[in-house]
């Protein structure tokens, strides 16, 4: 029972996180690339309930940020006017799921007030909006790459476990080769061979394909083990005796055994691949400006002065940690369920 509840909690958390990121256009108050050149490196906006006269407000509000005239990139609150935070406000147009043009945002403040929940970057772009939009790229990269890996792994694992012999031998030796490759250097190497001049969409696809293709070996080995044990079961022999084809046996009797492992693998691989994308983008080999991804958001921290001066630039790392922990909790829960035999 406890295991089930754990799975449910972790899954709900992950689904909520993914939904938020999927609905980035709605949740984010601003466009990720829109610059506010008067507000570079603004710290996160404070939410207030108590105003300057010490009056309590039920409705949370903010004060507009203004630059200090005497110092570089230093700001203060303008206490003259309160900007209450409204829900479902009209704002800049965005596209939902690449199709519907919408204007409504989850929250916002009246112009000329601006709300920067996670501060701004060097160009005055809202870091919160960028993290959400960047999450779309990073998470999608993780999910698609994991799907590629699992699909390849499943195919190779099934064939290799089911047919054994030289096919198995050669596939597994190849898998070992892939397992010992230091993936980061392989990624860097592969990226270096590709033309540098790629459109953002192409870059994204190439990244995902490369990351996914490199990672097939581990799921393949796991699937092979399961297939090996499944195909020696008595009901498989019986089925074969009734004249069942290989394809039927695989589909009907063998594959169902692999699902639990595949799910667990997926939960382990997705965060791993999200981090792979982040790493590549961090090194400047992923998407280029102005498209955000968690990797190129974090790349700002390569500058020493940003690293020591603007703590909110670490925010994408926090999002990355949340996603990784969420997935690992699910993987763990799946694993426990698998051990107790209920998946």
């Amino acid at each position, binding site marked *: 029972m406890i295991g089930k509840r754990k799975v449910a909690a972790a899954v709900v958390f992950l689904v909520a996180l993914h939904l938020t990121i999927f609905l980035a256009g709605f949740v984010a108050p601003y466009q990720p690339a829109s610059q506010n050149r008067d507000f570079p490196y603004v710290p996160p906006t404070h939410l207030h309930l108590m105003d300057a006269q010490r009056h309590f407000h039920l409705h949370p509000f903010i004060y507009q940020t203004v630059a200090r005239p005497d110092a*570089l990139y230093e700001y203060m609150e303008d206490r003259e006017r309160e900007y209450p935070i409204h829900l479902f406000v009209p704002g800049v147009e965005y596209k939902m799921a690449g199709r519907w043009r919408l204007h409504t945002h989850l929250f916002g403040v009246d112009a000329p007030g601006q709300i920067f929940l996670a501060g701004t970057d060097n160009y005055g772009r809202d870091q919160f909006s960028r993290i959400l939009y960047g999450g779309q790229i990073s998470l999608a990269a993780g999910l698609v790459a994991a799907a590629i890996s699992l699909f390849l792994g499943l195919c190779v694992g099934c064939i290799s476990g089911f047919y054994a012999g030289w096919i198995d031998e050669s596939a597994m030796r190849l898998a070992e080769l892939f397992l010992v490759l230091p993936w980061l250097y392989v990624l860097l190497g592969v990226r270096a061979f590709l033309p540098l001049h790629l459109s953002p969409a192409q870059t994204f696809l190439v990244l995902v394909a490369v990351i996914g293709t490199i990672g097939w070996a581990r799921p393949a080995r796991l699937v092979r083990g399961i297939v090996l044990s499944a195909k020696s079961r008595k009901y498989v022999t019986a089925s074969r005796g009734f004249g069942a084809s290989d394809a039927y046996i695989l589909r009907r009797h063998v594959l169902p055994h692999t699902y639990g492992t595949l799910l667990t693998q997926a939960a382990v691989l997705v965060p791993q691949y999200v981090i792979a994308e982040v790493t590549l983008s961090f090194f400047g080999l992923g998407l280029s*400006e102005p498209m955000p991804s968690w990797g190129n958001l974090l790349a700002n921290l390569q500058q020493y002065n940003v690293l020591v*001066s603007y703590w909110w630039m670490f925010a994408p790392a926090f999002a990355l940690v949340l996603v990784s922990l969420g997935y690992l909790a699910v993987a763990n829960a799946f694993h426990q369920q698998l051990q107790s035999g209920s998946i």
Partner: protein
Amino acid sequence: MLFTSSYNLAQSDIQAPRIANMPRLGYVALLLLASVVCCAASEPQPVQHGEEVQITDNAVGHYGGVLTVGQRSEPKTLNPATAGDAPSREVIGRLTADLIHINRGSQQTEPGLAKSWTLSKDGRVFTVNLRHGLRFSDGQPFDADDVVFSFKVYLDENLHSPQRDLLVVGGKPIMVQKINPYTVRFTLAAPYAAAERIFDSLAMMPRHLLEKSYQEGKFAQTWTLNTPPAEIAGMGPFRLKEYVPGQKIALERNPYFWKADRNQNRLPYLDELVFLFVGNEDAQVLRFQAGDTDIISRLGAENYALLSKDASNRGIELFDLGPSLEYNFLVFNLNDLTSKHLGEISVKQAWFRDLKFRQAVSSAIDRKGIVKLVYAGRGAALWGNVSPGNKFWVDQALPHPPRSIDHTRDLLRSAGFSWKGDQLVDPQGHSVEFSIITSTSNAQRLKMATIIQDDLSKLGMNVHIVPLEFRAVIDRVFQTYDYEASIMALGGGDADPNPEMNVWLSSGGTHLWQLGETKPATDWEARIDDLMQKQMVQLNYKERKHLYDQVQEIIAANVPYVFLATPNILVGAKKNLASFKPAILEPTTLWNVDELYYLSGNHSSSGASPGAKP
């Protein structure tokens, strides 16, 4: 390991022939003797009778101390005639001296190894009188033979010295002639404005050490980093002490340096000058903050702000010297691509060649935003090629049109462009879309590209940024022409217009927007050619300025480059370093290293010996 072994190999290569000719024991004894002489000789020698030292009017300091500075990368060579990279030149500049020197502070020329010079009435014959009684850092005398030898090396076509171009005036190399041991005559094929400035940074080399290798055709391989210090000598304030691969290069006082203070104390005051190979700017900031280095030059504005937060606690002082001479610009590829297979770029060149398109791009760019976001306010917006930091040559009348999106749209409309939704399309219906290449090693130019991308997107132009490795950018811009637009920077060497000839003459090697023109492609380029040639032979400053002003106006009106901004020169130094007078000309901080000294009692650097008077 790799480093050490290759180092030993190279060293033994060089020494092998000498060892073979000498009994081994004798060689060791000689080495010992040399090292004893060396140590003793590092103390400043008293000024001799008849030695024409230059007396500086600077504050009188005292001896002692080690000055440590960080370098981005290791120098490649110590050979003055082959060094092209900045770290090498920075070190060589401290080991050597020139005949006539540009004072970085005043930006005017002053006597160096030459105590005086005269120019003939036709502006073609230059007679230089050398100081008497000077000696190289190994104690050997310096005279006209060394000068003639040095120029012979620089002018040698087979050596491809980077200085050679400067010494070819009116299409012919300068003629150098020894009149007597202390007088040299230079004959130019054509009069040359500010001719004395070309002598700056031309290191005078010791004939007694280098002539043999030159005659054997091995000159390019001499004076590498592995050459033993005893075989390198110059006229600079310091001489080579030690090179540790991957770590540092240490220089010690030249005991025979030809400058002295008012009290006849021979300069330099510092015992040693050490260049640490630190790495990028951030690494330099960390080392400077930690107190490992005493001076930091070429600081970025954000690091400047960071350091200034606790500057007084750390005992450092920071200097903002105002706009540098460097100009950053966006350049469109206008090269002739007929022989190249770059069809897609050729189509876009139709826009780039349209003056109104270039003007529109220029008018849409938020230069103030660039200064604010890229240089954190410590820079200046540019509308022409001469930075406001160049006070002698900037054309103050040059217009600074404010940014205007409406004006830009009018310009584009009048050039036949229109809008489909938000997207700008050309008269043939192609969407306006191009890419800007820029070097990954320069974060500031990447930021400029991001700002320009955003500015131009407001006009409906779709701009992609392609960060490339520095060499790849250079290769595309200079060789393959496989680019659409690029952000680059030029300038920063000298304040005078003459080093800019290469950029503005249509045949120039840095005429980036269209390289290799056999004749000027447009009327205005022909006019620039004419004006630049005229200013080069005009000896009167006012006349020259008038000519160069016209050049600046033509450039601004025709926008071959979209000028963006120039950074301020920002530097820092330990507070107890006296006589520190940074300047906007390179080398910004070390140009008067011979005059620097530590205020008494608090030498910050390790190894500083107590100040001893000679």
